[in-house]
């Protein structure tokens, strides 16, 4: 009898979802102009994070005008009809806030974190940006220079800085993911002011935006202010351009050598991924953690600690709306040939494909993922971003509460299966980054 009871209890435990997530409450509404608004109240700290996600990234660009989406991220700090040039940051900082923005292949995201008594200011500032931001010659000229410096600092002057653009270029033959958000300086130089103004009219419209407010707020007051500042912004007239391109599956490996201002060679491998919303994304994300997440992960332990062939090895699933890339990079230790390092990496990939992983490692992996997911919602900034993305990409803000469940459904076999299915050596891109000194004379 006792045995049965114990078994019953065990089964009971097992049938519960292994990972539990605290529910994040929120309220949503739409304005007539199509702006979607998400509010999350948390009164534990008197701060408020206000963010606007514009559903425009480098993939929405004209192939002759790459870099526009990212360029706008800069331009949008120039000011508006009522905000003097260069004052956007000073105003926010002067009221005790911080702010920032980023651009990906899919989205452009702006946010500011302020004391909660400055919510009205934040909404005003974002509405000014959406209604009548300064898109003029002076601003474009100024930001062209800034973007040039950014490009120098982050790509050209940065060892291995061109990995992403060089990899994307080869991983996609059809899809606009083939260029990186930083785009082309020539395109930006060639663009006329009318083209910039048109981009603003096309994409910086309320029906292409998600406004998220998270923090110490009053729902009613917040909604009133949102309506006050955002209702008068006109809806975009055109349908938002979203590329409808299916990247064909690669059947042959693409292999290349890049000579860069570096001292130590690096090996890059990239595999095409399914769309971000695909059910396999969870298993792939766990696979990357299993391979290189932390000091005791498979590749770090084997290649960095034991064999000491690599200084560093990392697997990053760059998840994108239409299917991103699983990018692995490793930097060779002194005196190690890239070929040698690549062979060892491939061996470990084969090992996962053929043998899968142990129960012990699988449990550890689940524990690490659980901790990561819980921690991703530990700040207002994190919650605002996750809510905005849940709505814009997954079409449901409540997706934020389903992430843990999705991960807990992944099995050990799933991880082995996605390793076989997606890490296909015949459809990948392999790049060797070598010191310029090794470049054969031309």
């Amino acid at each position, binding site marked *: 009898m006792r045995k049965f009871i114990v078994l019953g209890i065990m089964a009971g435990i097992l049938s519960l979802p292994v990972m*539990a997530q*605290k529910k994040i409450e929120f309220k949503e509404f739409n304005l007539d102009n199509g702006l979607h608004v998400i509010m999350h109240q*948390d009164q*534990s*700290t*008197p*701060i408020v994070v206000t963010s606007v996600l514009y559903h425009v990234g480098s993939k929405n660009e004209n192939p002759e005008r790459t870099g526009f989406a990212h360029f706008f991220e800069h331009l949008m700090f120039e000011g508006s*009809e*009522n905000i003097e040039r260069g004052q956007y940051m*000073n*105003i926010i*900082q*002067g*009221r*005790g*806030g*911080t702010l920032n923005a980023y651009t990906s292949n899919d989205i452009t995201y702006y946010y500011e*974190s*302020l*004391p*909660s*008594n*400055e*919510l*009205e*200011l934040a*909404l*005003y500032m974002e509405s*000014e940006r959406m209604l009548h931001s300064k898109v003029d010659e002076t601003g474009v000229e100024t930001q062209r220079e800034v973007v040039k410096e950014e490009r120098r600092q982050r790509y050209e002057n940065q060892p291995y800085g061109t990995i992403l653009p060089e990899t994307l270029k080869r991983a996609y033959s059809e899809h606009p993911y083939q260029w990186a958000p930083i785009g082309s300086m020539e395109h930006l130089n060639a663009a006329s002011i009318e083209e910039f103004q048109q981009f603003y009219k096309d994409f910086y419209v309320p029906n292409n935006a998600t406004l998220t407010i998270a923090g110490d707020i009053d729902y009613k007051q917040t909604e*009133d202010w949102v*309506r*006050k500042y955002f*209702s*008068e912004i006109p809806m975009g007239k055109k349908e938002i351009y979203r590329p409808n391109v299916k990247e064909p599956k690669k059947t042959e490996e693409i292999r290349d050598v890049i000579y860069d201002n570096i001292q130590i060679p690096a090996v890059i491998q990239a595999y095409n991924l399914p769309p971000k919303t695909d059910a396999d994304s969870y298993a792939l994300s766990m696979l990357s953690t299993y391979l290189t997440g*932390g*000091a*005791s992960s498979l590749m770090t332990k084997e290649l960095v600690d034991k064999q*000491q062939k690599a200084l560093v090895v990392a697997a990053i699933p760059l998840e994108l709306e239409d299917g991103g890339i699983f990018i692995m990079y490793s930097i060779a*230790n*002194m*005196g190690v040939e890239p070929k040698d390092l690549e062979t060892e990496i491939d061996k470990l990939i084969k090992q996962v494909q053929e043998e899968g992983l142990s129960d012990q490692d699988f*449990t*550890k992996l689940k*524990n*690490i*993922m*659980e*901790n*990561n997911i*819980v*921690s991703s*919602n*530990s*700040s*207002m900034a994190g919650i605002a971003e996750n809510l905005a993305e849940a709505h814009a990409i997954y079409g449901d803000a409540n997706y934020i509460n389903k992430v843990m469940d999705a991960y807990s459904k992944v099995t050990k076999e799933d991880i082995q299966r996605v390793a076989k299915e997606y890490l296909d050596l015949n459809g990948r891109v392999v790049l060797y980054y*070598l*010191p310029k*000194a*090794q*470049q054969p004379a031309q």
Partner: protein
Amino acid sequence: MKKIAISFVLSFLIAVVSFAQLDRSQFPKSGPAPEIKIGEAETFTLDNGLKVFVVKNDKLPRVSFTLVLERDPLLEGDKAGLTGFVGEMMTAGTTNRTKDQLDEEVDFIGASLSASSTSIFASSLKKHQAKVLELMADVLYNPVFPQEELDKLRKQSLTGLASSKDDPGAISARLTSAMMYGKDHPYGEIETEETINNITVADIKNYYETFFKPNIAYLAIVGDMDKAEAEKVVKEYFASWEPGDVPTFTYETPKRPETSVVGLVDRSSSVQTNINIVQPVELKIGDEDYISSRLVNQILGGGSSSRLFMNLREDKGYTYGAYSSISSDKLIGQFSANAAVRTEVTDSAVVQFIYELDRLVKSGVTEEELEKAKSNLAGSFGRSLESPSTIANFALNTERYNLPKDYYATYLQKMNSYTVEDINKTAVDLIQPDKMYITAVGNGSEIKDKLAQFGEVKMFTNMGDPAKEIQMTDASMTAEKVIENYISAIGGEDAASAIKSAKVSMAAEIMGNSLVIDMVFDDQNLRYGQKTSVMGNVMQSTTMMDGKGSISAQGQTIEMSDEQYEEGKMSALFLPELYYEDLGYTLTLDGVKDVEGTPAYKVIIVNPSGAKMANYYSVESGLKIKNENEKAGDTFYKDYQEKNGVLIPMGWMIKSPAIPVPLDAKITSLELNPDLTEADFK
């Protein structure tokens, strides 16, 4: 029905709002300052004296445990650096678990666990709390302090110390603390190779046994745990911790100088001067001036819109950034105003610093500046509250500094109540612009005289010791005599000229890999070959012969230009001093300098095409102890041993911009006058 009515009323309201002409030219005003709701910590104390704070925050299913020891600062003396090792030694294995096992068990539950000499920190998801507490308690009760871990830490520490000797930031930090506190104060003592080498496992054990006692400890629990549960788990894991007497220490309070003095470290390779203007400040959290001191500093130099930044960077363009800070501490705090500026503007920058300090103290701040500083600090205070560890810190500070219970709850109200007059008074109370230690690390020959206008200039070494009185005692000394003395010191001209060629093999370790440098010198025929290999692979090689030279790296060979060849030749001789005259080099004696504590004659050597390097010869022994070469870096020569009647340095410490850490190379084999063929140089 009700719902419909409400929505009707709502839509009516909305319509009104949107029809009203919105005046967008006016920025929305700030709402009333929010009340800071800081979760109050609950406390209890165990019989062994351990004070526990519980800050319940169940927003996320996580919990963290921070154990802090409250002891007096220690004077570590000839073991300076000891406390820096304690934390990592504690997590390096227990009687139950090796270091690897401990790491794996922590990773397995996605937790973190770390320690320092006065703390242990652990955090995990709620459901793993029992495991993480078990690991934390194991580290607290059963550390084994393995010798090999100490050896590893010592090695890292010595590498760090070696590179810090050339790091202007680190030199500046040593200089300011040595001047401000003196080396007999816990905050002024300095780690050296000697003190680091003195530290033993027994010392660390002894420290652990003396100070890891519950009666001087606080445990802050933050996260998904209430007091009742905390009492249960704390009893389970920490009740058996044995209390004991812990020694206390007092120190004399460091004083400000009667009048400002200048401290200078000569770092001749510097193109920038690190200026740091400091004085000790008696200030601790909870003092009347504490909150207002935050505002004073914000206005003076707390950020990129503060006075120092606006003046020295935006207006003058002297620097990338100029800042100030006023730190608080139970023992003694400090005021600091600092910037790294171009060498040429060193004195002008100090003038501006002092101008800003005077202006602050004499003319005070404006209403507008104060308002901006308040918003800025209130904002960052508010944002900091998001992190549960801030709340735990507040609870700990409230106890440690004996603060009123509502100190942090009313922090912003207090801050907002300060007037311009209050701030001006705080500035006068805390800062005395005419009693500063004005410190500079930079090119001494260019800045020393210019700094004299600010006070007496005292010279220091890169380790913060007063630089030895460096004066040429022998006025008749010349560069030629220094070279003569050197040749006689190594064994005399006859013995030295008998060495015509040499084969040298040196070994060093770089980031865990062994590195071998093979060199072949043929001084008489001006032939030279050099190969650097890592783990058997040749990384780089140089060949010079028949009036030509080439360098190979990564499979690529580059021929030297004539100018490069001439410059390379200066470093391509085994005993170059014998040939300086023949080669037509110009020698200049540039006084006596301090080379890591040894007074040495500096001889500048210039070749006919203008390339420069410098050699340093010990005043006392006559031996060459350093070569300084702008491109190749610095080489220090040590451990002279007699070979064929000539003293040869068997240890070479090479510091070069091309390598991340100084290379401590030792000669492993040396052949004098070997048979050489052309192949030896390739």
